[in-house]
């Protein structure tokens, strides 16, 4: 019996959300008196995989089949199911990412496991009962969910777990093969197109986000958002109307119908804070709002606020960050 952790890699590196997932998995393993094995997917280097030992992982399985570099639902599902079987995994942990959701839901049927997504805390395990807390109602509530049956799959929401870090600890990397056939690659992507990310930081993974709304008046003013984001090492985002009129690309749109983010710091500039926008950002740890209207609803959800004109305030903030050194 073990805990299996699905680790997503990109360009040789383990994704930040997967470090969180690895930490979550090794803590669950400890609670259950067992060990946590990782199965790595995507393009990984052995050295980076070995470093998963720092998150408490005791062994990393890796299939170097080149066609597994990009996400293929059929093949990934089979690979992870085979690893779960080999390791006799009773609990499988993934990131609540597009890959995690696509594979986790298929695996739950294949392995007859109960599944909880959007999980925000370590489980409570009391005797036979296994309880997890998950976000619900677009961030407006939480649900404690009982996972029934012998096998469980948990998808952990990004930025909800502080990664463990035991510097220098390594895990052995063991090659693994699921004996995949061509049919398993039937849904392989024909093409993968990466979009420009401001400062190279992926919005769904970002620790800090600077976001602009209609109050920014036009795309020509976005350098104010980008300058602050760059100084803070943050990703940039926007409200829906901003992407609807193409001031910014769709992949930066956060909210109910856009991307959900939960960074440590979310700075909203010239955004009113409509409930549909809040739905995608309200689980951010610290929310800062800059709006010239003191009645803007966003101030109710904010931790810090400045009632003022973004064109005046943003350069001051960027300057202040630079002065911190």
């Amino acid at each position: 019996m073990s805990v299996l952790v699905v680790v997503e890699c990109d360009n040789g590196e383990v994704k930040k959300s997967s470090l969180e997932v690895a930490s979550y998995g090794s803590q669950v393993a400890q609670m259950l008196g067992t060990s946590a094995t990782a199965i790595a997917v995507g393009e990984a280097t052995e050295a980076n995989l070995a470093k998963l030992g720092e998150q408490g992982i005791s062994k990393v399985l890796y299939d170097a089949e080149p066609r597994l570099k990009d996400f293929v639902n059929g093949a990934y599902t089979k690979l992870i199911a085979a690893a779960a079987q080999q390791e006799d995994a009773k609990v499988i942990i993934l990131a609540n990412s597009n890959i995690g959701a696509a594979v986790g839901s298929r695996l739950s049927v294949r392995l007859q496991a109960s599944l909880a997504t959007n999980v925000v805390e370590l489980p409570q395990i009391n005797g036979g009962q296994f309880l997890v807390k998950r976000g619900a109602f677009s961030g407006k509530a939480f649900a404690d969910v009982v996972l029934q049956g012998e096998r469980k799959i948990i998808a952990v929401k990004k930025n909800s777990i502080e990664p463990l870090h035991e510097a220098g600890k390594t895990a052995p990397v063991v090659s693994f093969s699921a004996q995949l056939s061509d049919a398993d690659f039937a849904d392989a992507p024909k093409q993968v197109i990466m979009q420009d990310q401001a400062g190279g930081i992926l919005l769904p993974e970002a620790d800090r986000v600077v976001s602009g709304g209609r109050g920014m008046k036009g795309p020509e003013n976005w350098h104010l958002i980008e300058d602050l984001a760059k100084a803070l090492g943050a990703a940039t985002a926007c409200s829906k109307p901003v992407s609807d009129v193409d001031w910014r690309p769709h992949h930066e749109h956060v909210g109910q119908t856009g991307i959900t983010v939960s960074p440590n710091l979310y700075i909203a500039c010239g955004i009113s804070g409509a409930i549909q926008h809040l739905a995608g950002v309200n689980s951010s740890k610290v929310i800062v709002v800059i709006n010239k209207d003191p009645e803007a609803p966003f101030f109710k959800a904010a931790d810090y606020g400045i009632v003022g004109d973004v064109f005046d305030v943003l350069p001051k903030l960027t300057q202040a960050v630079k002065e911190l050194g």
Partner: protein
Amino acid sequence: MKFLVCISNVPDTTTKITFTPDNKEFNKAGVQFVINPWDEYALTRAIELKEAQGSGTVTVLNVGEADTEPNIRKALAIGADDAIRVNAHPKDAYFVAQQIASVAKEGGYDVILMGKESIDYNGFQVHGMVGEMLGIPTVAPAMKLDMNGNTATLEREIEGGKEIVEVNTPFVASCQQPMCEPRIPNMRGIMTARTKPLKVIEPVGEGARTEVAEYALPPKKQGVKLIPAENAGELIKLLRNEAKVI
């Protein structure tokens, strides 16, 4: 081509969320229910594709009790041809997926579409469960869907970009924007929807695999700390020394 579009009935996006006194159920009293906003992308795209092909049908499927019928009728008014309601309280994603898979199998649908997730349960699970139950591919979440004969070309969102994926029917896709501009019903649609068939069937399969023990609201925010605009730089110091986020 036969399209099956799964819709869920959710509290309107602006609803203030409250629970029954035992915190076990969402409190429906006085709440307006709508078609899940993500499902509107699935519904509209299916109708657009059917129109472009000049033939085929769009069937709407909902797992829910009789109180969901106004939204099923709304989906018919938007342009679906007929509807099926599985008469059951949707207990969890697994339970719902079993109903969808059973209807899909029986009806021989070519394309099964649904929204990425529901805005109440936020599961993002049903698509994959249905695909696995039927042994067919799933593409989730899809931002674009075009059909050429039995082959579909989809854009699938990945972190930091997108993949172009080609699959043959039958397949499942969970939809999100910018797939299409969701349609709203017009007067003619509302009139014709009244006479379109809505079949009610009983649920199949095993029970649920998960159970909500309790719902809770997030802790209340302390209230906003305002910093005067003239002193904007002070905010950065607070973020470092007090909030410790930079």
